[in-house]
């Protein structure tokens, strides 16, 4: 997958960073495709991004309602077949609610929304979305959320660590109470990745803390994982 890679970005009611995700896809050299929450149709894309925002206002639980959108049935199916799926912030929450990823995200321990440039370590480059990074590489991308505390039971945490599925870890202080400083994780196969910080806001020199976010979008171009279109 490289030339002409098509990456779908889902827009739910209340998605906010969908335009930014599409811009990032484009800057990385792929073709962004708009996917609408109400259409059970992935339009033949090779990979899917669930963007940040406050789907349905996130009033009930973050991502709780978006999980049931018609498009999500297709995303779950495609993910099962190996299609690369990236959930950013609210998208990560949707992936957890959909059980594509384990655990859940709860209110930040300090109870405030927090927007900052966050230092991270890429713990695993063995996923569809991190292959362009060197293992252990340190990057800076924006973090912005009110409910970013990753929680899971001990057994799940141990398994994630053991299987190398902790993909990103917070550095220089834990910004929200996430267990074991976890900022992002993957599924067993490594095609589904979720993270709280926003790589799509670090893809243009002037409009963010640098270009470190491009690595995620570049990775999926060379992932070599064949999409199984629905």
């Amino acid at each position, binding site marked *: 997958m490289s030339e002409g890679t098509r990456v779908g970005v889902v827009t739910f009611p209340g998605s906010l960073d969908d335009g930014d995700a599409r811009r990032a896809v484009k800057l990385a050299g792929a073709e962004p495709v708009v996917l609408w929450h109400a259409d059970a149709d992935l339009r033949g894309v090779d990979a899917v991004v669930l963007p940040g925002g406050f789907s*349905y*206002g996130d*009033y*009930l639980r973050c991502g709780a*309602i978006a999980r*049931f959108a018609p498009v999500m049935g297709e995303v779950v199916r495609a993910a099962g077949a190996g299609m690369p799926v990236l959930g950013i912030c609210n998208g990560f929450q949707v992936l957890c609610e959909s059980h594509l990823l384990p655990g859940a995200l709860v209110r930040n321990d300090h109870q405030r929304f927090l927007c900052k440039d966050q230092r991270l370590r890429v713990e695993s480059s063995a996923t569809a979305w991190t292959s362009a990074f060197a293992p252990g590489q340190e990057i800076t991308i924006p973090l912005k959320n009110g409910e970013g505390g990753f929680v899971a039971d001990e057994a799940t945490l141990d398994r994630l660590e053991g299987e190398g599925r902790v993909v990103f870890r917070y550095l220089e202080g834990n910004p929200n109470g996430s267990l074991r400083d976890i900022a992002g994780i993957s599924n067993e196969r490594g095609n589904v990745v979720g993270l709280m910080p926003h790589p799509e806001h670090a893809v243009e020199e002037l409009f963010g803390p640098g270009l470190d976010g491009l690595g995620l979008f570049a990775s999926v171009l060379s992932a070599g994982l064949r999409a199984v279109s629905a």
Partner: protein
Amino acid sequence: MGRVVIDVMPKPEILDPQGKAVVGALPRLGFDLFTGVRQGKRFELEVPGEVTPEVLEQARRAAETLLSNPVIEDVVSVRDASAAEVGA
């Protein structure tokens, strides 16, 4: 160990965006019987000993001052729930 349960709900006349979001989502998931939803808060307060009248009184005052915002919320109930309502 004793437990006091406090229920706080948005005042009926105040907009409840949470409840609105839920009532919009329910029919899409096939739950078609509900015409209104309001979402409030439930607090469980623990005390080391029994729930005495003094405990209840303090819980009541905490409910009015800290746990609810009287401008937009009502304290619906403050009750001893030491025995009941555990994982019911």
